[in-house]
Each structure stands twice: as C-alpha cells, then as structure tokens.
C-alpha cells in the first residue's frame, strides 16, 4: 500500500506543472454536474467523500497536505405516501358499476422503488362494502381513468416503479350493491408497500438499497394507505294524488255530469336526480276522459303520442317528466267526466 502510493506520489510530482489547470477544470465540471437538492434527499448510492487539506509555512516554503479520504455511501431510505386525490366523496347509485376512486402514490424515499398495491373495499365503520373490480394504473399519466387505455394492475407483475420524489396515479374501480340507500358511504382504502421491504422505521435490509448500499425503512414504515369514499346519491319519488269535483250545479258532488280533476304530484326526495320520471294513471272505470285536459306544471299537453310530454291512449294518461333533481316536484293534472 505504502509502496504503491509513493509511486503515485512520484508520478504526481512529475505531473505538477499540469496539475493546477487540471484541478481548475475539474472544479468547474464538478459544479456543472451538481444535482439540485431534492425533497427526498440525496439519491441512494451517492458517495460522500470527505478530504481535508492543510497548508502551512516551513523554513523551506509553503507546504500543502491532504488528509486521507473518507468515503461513505448514502443508503436507500424506503418511504412512501398515499393520498386520495378525489375532491370529496365520489357519487354512486344503487347497483352502479365502475365507480372510480383516485389515489396518488408518492415515493418520498431517495431511491427508485417498486410498490405493491392492495385495495380494501371491505372496511368497517362505513355503511356498505362495494365490490372491488380492479386497480388500474394511470399509464398515460393524464390523471383521468381511461378504460382500455390505462393498464390493469396485477400484483407482482406490473408493480409501479416510482423514482424518488415522483408520484403515480392509481384508480380503484368498484361496483355498488343494489341494496344501498341515499346517503350511504363506503370507505375504500389503497395501501402501497415498498417491495424492498417494510416494517418499523430503522429496519434495514443489507445490500438491498439502490446503488449497492443498504435499504433502511424510513419514518413512513415504507408502507402507506389512504381512504377514498363513495357516497350513494339516490333519489326517490312519492306520488300524491288528489281529486276535485265540479258537478253541473256548481257543487262538488259526484253525480252524473260532474267533472273530476285529478292532480298527481310527484315529489322527488333524496339526493342527486331521478332520471326519466314517467307518470302514468289509468282512467277510472265508469268515467270518461275529457279530451285535451292533460297538463304538466300547469302547461297544457296534447293527447297524441308526439313531441310533447303527454299522451292519452284510450285507457290511461301518461306524462314523461324527464330528469327531476331531488327536492323538486312535478305535478300533472287531467279531467274525467262521470257519464
């Protein structure tokens, strides 16, 4: 060791004239290649080399000495965070399929790391358990679930590899059971765990770190989870029917010749909206429909099955009231005569 280094010492002395410009060049190159500091810290595998130097004056002139270099390698810190990125509860409905919940997995460690993903749709403390369909990786990286474009996750096959300080977006696709009611919520969790290893902070895996060092579990335990929520928005309709009689004498007795005005109020309650509400009412036996008397929200409708919302087919009246938001009412009326 001593022999070989004194050989180098001799060589360095012969090179002395060329050294100073060489060193200056090295220094400037060093700055050009300095990496910006990152939140996750120095990349795993980076060498930290420390050398001190001293100069002093002797009777024979100034002298410079260098210390021994001390080299340490930065080990890989295993850290991960998972965050639900939906702005709030994602709306679903009884029997709905393909609910999409969105999560972001961020590698907060200092080495590139693959993560195993587990979705849990059967959590306690909520109102229902949706059926887990699949976990999908946002492979085109646009933050939006694109069925058939984004890749379905298969554990152990395409575990997402995330660079330090980088994130991947992941979707958890679920179906809602039929029996749920308005306001029910479901907790759907996603867990990401570092493939190199996880456990209590400080747990180390010799030689398993990126760049040849060890891997050490960081403060996150190298495993993280977050919950997204589904919220059932179901609208219900109640029909209230009333009748007003006007007899030929100006009274309200159900006598022959009296006209009965039926009024049906459809009250939509719950949340969300009711799609394609259709109100149908048969003409009571023993009464005759008065032609052209259907109204919707006090607007007259024709009897023909045509562009407007109402029709009479000889036995019943029918009004298509369309989509009705919760909290609103649609009222139809029609008249019959007692023969």
């Amino acid at each position: 060791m001593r022999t070989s280094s004194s050989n180098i010492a001799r060589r360095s002395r012969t090179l002395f004239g060329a050294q100073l410009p060489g060193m200056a060049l090295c220094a400037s190159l060093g700055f050009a290649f300095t990496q910006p500091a990152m939140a996750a810290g120095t990349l795993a595998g980076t060498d930290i080399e420390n050398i001190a130097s001293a100069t002093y004056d002797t009777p024979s002139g100034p002298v410079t000495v260098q210390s021994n270099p001390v080299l340490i390698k930065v080990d890989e810190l295993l850290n991960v965070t998972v965050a639900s990125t939906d702005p709030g509860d994602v709306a679903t409905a009884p029997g709905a399929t393909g609910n999409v919940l969105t999560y972001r997995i961020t590698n907060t460690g200092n080495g590139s790391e693959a993560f195993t993903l587990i979705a849990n749709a059967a959590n306690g403390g909520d109102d229902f358990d949706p059926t887990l369909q699949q976990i999908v990786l946002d492979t085109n990286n646009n933050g939006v679930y694109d069925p058939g474009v984004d890749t379905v996750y298969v554990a152990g096959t395409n575990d997402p590899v995330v660079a330090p300080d980088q994130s991947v977006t992941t979707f958890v696709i679920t179906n809602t059971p039929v029996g749920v009611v308005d306001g029910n919520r479901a907790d759907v969790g996603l867990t990401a765990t570092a493939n190199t290893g996880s456990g209590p902070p400080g747990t180390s895996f010799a030689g398993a770190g990126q760049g040849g060092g060890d891997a050490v579990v960081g403060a996150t335990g190298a495993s993280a989870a977050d919950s997204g929520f589904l919220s059932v928005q179901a609208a219900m309709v109640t029909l209230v029917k009333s009748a007003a009689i006007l007899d030929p004498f100006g009274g309200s007795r159900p006598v022959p010749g009296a006209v009965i005005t039926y009024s049906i109020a459809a009250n939509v309650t719950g949340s969300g909206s009711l799609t394609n509400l259709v109100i149908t009412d048969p003409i009571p036996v023993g009464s005759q429909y008065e032609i052209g008397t259907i109204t919707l929200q006090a607007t007259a409708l024709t009897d023909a099955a045509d562009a407007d919302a109402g029709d009479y087919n000889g036995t019943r009246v029918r009004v298509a009231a369309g989509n009705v938001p919760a909290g609103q009412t649609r009222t139809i009326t029609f008249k019959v005569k007692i023969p």
Partner: protein
Amino acid sequence: MKSLIKACFAIAATLFAGATAFAATPLELKSDVFVERHVVRGDGSKTVVLEKPNMVTPGDNLVFIVRYKNVGGSTASNFVVTNPLPSAVAFNGTSDGLEIVSINGGKSWGILGSLRVAMADGTSRPAMQTDVTHIKWNLNQPLTAGAGGKLIFRGIVK
C-alpha cells in the same frame, strides 16, 4: 467529455493520494466521519452516540473530525486547514465557531453571518448554513513540533 472527466478524476486522485504519502511531510492530517445516533437506553433515558457510518440516509447527522499533528522537527506557521464540504452534505456548524466559510466554491471567504447570496432578481439574502461549500480554519498560533489538535464540524446528509 467523458474521458476528460475521467482524466480529471485520475489527476485529482493522484494528487490526493500523492500528498498523503509525501514522505517528508512533517504534518499529519487525518479525517474521520461519524454518524450521530439518538439511542434510547433500557431505562428510557436518551443518549447520543457516534457510530461508524455503516448506514447513512438523508437527514442523518454526520460529525466530521479532522485531526492534525506536527510530526516533524520544526514549527509550522500560518497553519490553515480547509475542508471542502461534500456536495451531499449540508453544513451544520463547527464545535469551536472559529471557522470561516465559502459559499462559492472557495473563491471568497468570511464568517457565515457576513456573507450574502446573490438572487436572480438582483437582490441578495443572508447566506445560510446550507449555502456553505467550504470550511476553513486559520490557526493563528504557530504549530510547534509535536503539537496537534482536532477540528470538528457537523453536517446533515441532504
């Protein structure tokens, strides 16, 4: 470019290795690095221990110790110790507070509180420990034969 860098490393390595082994050097300079660990003892009390840096991750506290000793027969005057900070380490103070630092790769020096960092918009801000690139001690008294000492500074792995 690649070969140029390689050449630089070769020259640098040669220089460092060469200087350490300089047979006539009457001054010894030794560098050591330790990791500071907070250990909880069995009785629950906490203590700080210095460990060999077998495992180092971002955020760890490093303690650098530079030992010097005049092993020659004559006095060394104007004794100056310089330690460029490894790029992955943020400066975190010295034990004696007598150092001057550089925030521009060793071009200029001063006590940290007197240095300012130029900003892109033409203004400047006070330099912080994380700006430090080099540390230097000017030991004022001559180092007589056989005398020595140690300098300690701390850094945090970025």
